[in-house]
């Protein structure tokens, strides 16, 4: 129940709710205004995500943002993608922390610190990816690069799953 939320939980829920909306609106300064209905949809889904952090509704909200970024930009990555990534990561981590227990569970400071460090480290991939994409922006598309990347990703997933299953059997 919302009444049971501690101050820490309120902070987590607000962060979880604002993250996807801010990530969506980040396309505006980049020159692409998101549709009104999309903003409303993402806002509603984000509120539901904040209320029910363990439900898949958060994935839908953030997935809509990701798809919108894919649809909105066709001329290379924009620097506003980096703060958008930060907002999404913050929303994800806030929901993750809120999902450690029931609504009235207080936020453990040590756990919060650990996840802030982790989120910060994981977020560094976003500017890294942006720099790589920016570096290759003007070089033209290498034929078959997307197919090769996808195949490599699939191979990595299969190999990782195999390794994990072997570890579990032991």
């Amino acid at each position: 129940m919302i009444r049971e939320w501690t101050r820490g939980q309120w902070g987590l829920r607000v962060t979880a709710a604002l993250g996807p909306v801010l990530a969506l609106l980040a396309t505006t300064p980049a020159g692409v205004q998101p549709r009104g209905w999309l903003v409303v949809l993402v806002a509603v889904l984000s509120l539901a995500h904040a209320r029910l952090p363990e439900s898949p509704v958060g994935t839908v909200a953030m997935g809509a943002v990701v798809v919108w970024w894919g649809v909105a930009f066709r001329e290379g990555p924009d620097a506003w993608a980096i703060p958008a990534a930060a907002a999404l990561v913050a929303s994800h981590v806030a929901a993750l922390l809120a999902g450690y227990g029931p609504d009235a569970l207080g936020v453990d400071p040590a756990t919060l610190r650990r996840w802030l460090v982790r989120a910060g480290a994981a977020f560094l991939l976003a500017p890294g990816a942006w720099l790589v994409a920016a570096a290759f922006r003007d070089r033209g598309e290498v034929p078959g690069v997307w197919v090769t990347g996808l195949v490599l990703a699939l191979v990595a997933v299969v190999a990782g799953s195999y390794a994990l299953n072997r570890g579990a059997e032991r």
Partner: protein
Amino acid sequence: MSSWRTTAALSRTAALGALGVATAVLFGEPAVMVLTAPFLLMGALGLLHRPTSTPVARSVVDHVVLHEGQGTRSRLVVSDLSGVEHVTRVAATAPYLALHPAAGRTGRLVGGDEDVPLLEVSPRRWGRRDLGEENVAFTSPWAGYRWGPARLDGSRLQVLPVRAAFDSRAEAPQPLGLVGAHRSRRPGDGTEFAAIRRFHTGDRLRRIHWRVSLRTDALHVVSTLGEEDTAVLVVVDALADHGRSGGVDGAASSLDVTARAAAALAEHHVRRGDRVSLRVVGSGGETVRYGAGARHLQVILGRLATMQVGTPRDLRGDQLQLGVTAGTVVIVLSPMLSEAMATMTATLVQRGLPVLVVDTLPAEVTPAVVEGTDPRVAGLAWRMRLVERREVLARLAALGCPVVAWRGPGTLDDVLRRLARRAQLPQVRTR
């Protein structure tokens, strides 16, 4: 038992990572990978830290027997904590049980210097207190997998009544035992001066009082009174609980006053070397036979903690078997709102036993009424009940049974002295 399952966080990172790759491929837009690259990393790390352990958890408390207001710790014993980064414990709240952290919810990191989180438990009222069921969940590093929430059974605490402050210097009215601390009416080898009398054969020479002997030209000795123990029967009225209990720190119900006063009286008399017995008049009919010593006191306190409140079938005050022998001091702890208790007390008084009633009805008590009852009718009924009670107490007093309200130290001194004086007078007893 529970097993490790993927968390919503891992599902989210995997779904967003896959969606990012798919969107980037479909639209040929690498900006999407900027958004989802952190999720791919977190998802991968969550998968890599998949636990292989099979934890078995149980909850234990450090102490199962406590006094009201004392505290203990509820520990979570886990067979295998490998692969566990975070532990969440959520204990159900129960009446008269204070938990810390508040509401019994705690969660923290484990591993390294960090231990499994503890729950501090403090029962606030005597009786049997069941810790509610507890839900426990373990989360793996990077929140990829979760074990639980698993439901664990709560422990049961036996909460002894806190011993109310009590002390008495009065002696037992009719000590009738072997060796004790009470001045006997019979002469004996004690220390209490009785008289100076003429020497009889068998008297000890060290008892000769030389000053009187020289003055009277006849040997005189100092005689003393014997010292004996006494038997004390504590009768507890557990037919009903009047008033609302706020626990050890709050308002006291009639049964709270009764249990705490009984505990205090039992401790006082056991420490003085008396033989103490307990009889609970209630649906459980708990009884403790006469005995002395610290272990016996623990038995009495334990029986008080487990007494069952209610009216037994076929309760008749004149037929209650209390096992009272001559010389036994009977202390009845009761709010005297039951006819059976009044009859029982009057019967004991008429047998010539030293009986005293400790009134345990709190001053500001209000009746518990069924929901929907007109408060004016309930108030009127309660006032009528109190009028009847006053009449009962007056009749008991007229029979020679003192009635005192419980007020801690000194509650019984005056009435016990009066009973002792009265015991020296000739009496007519009925059987």
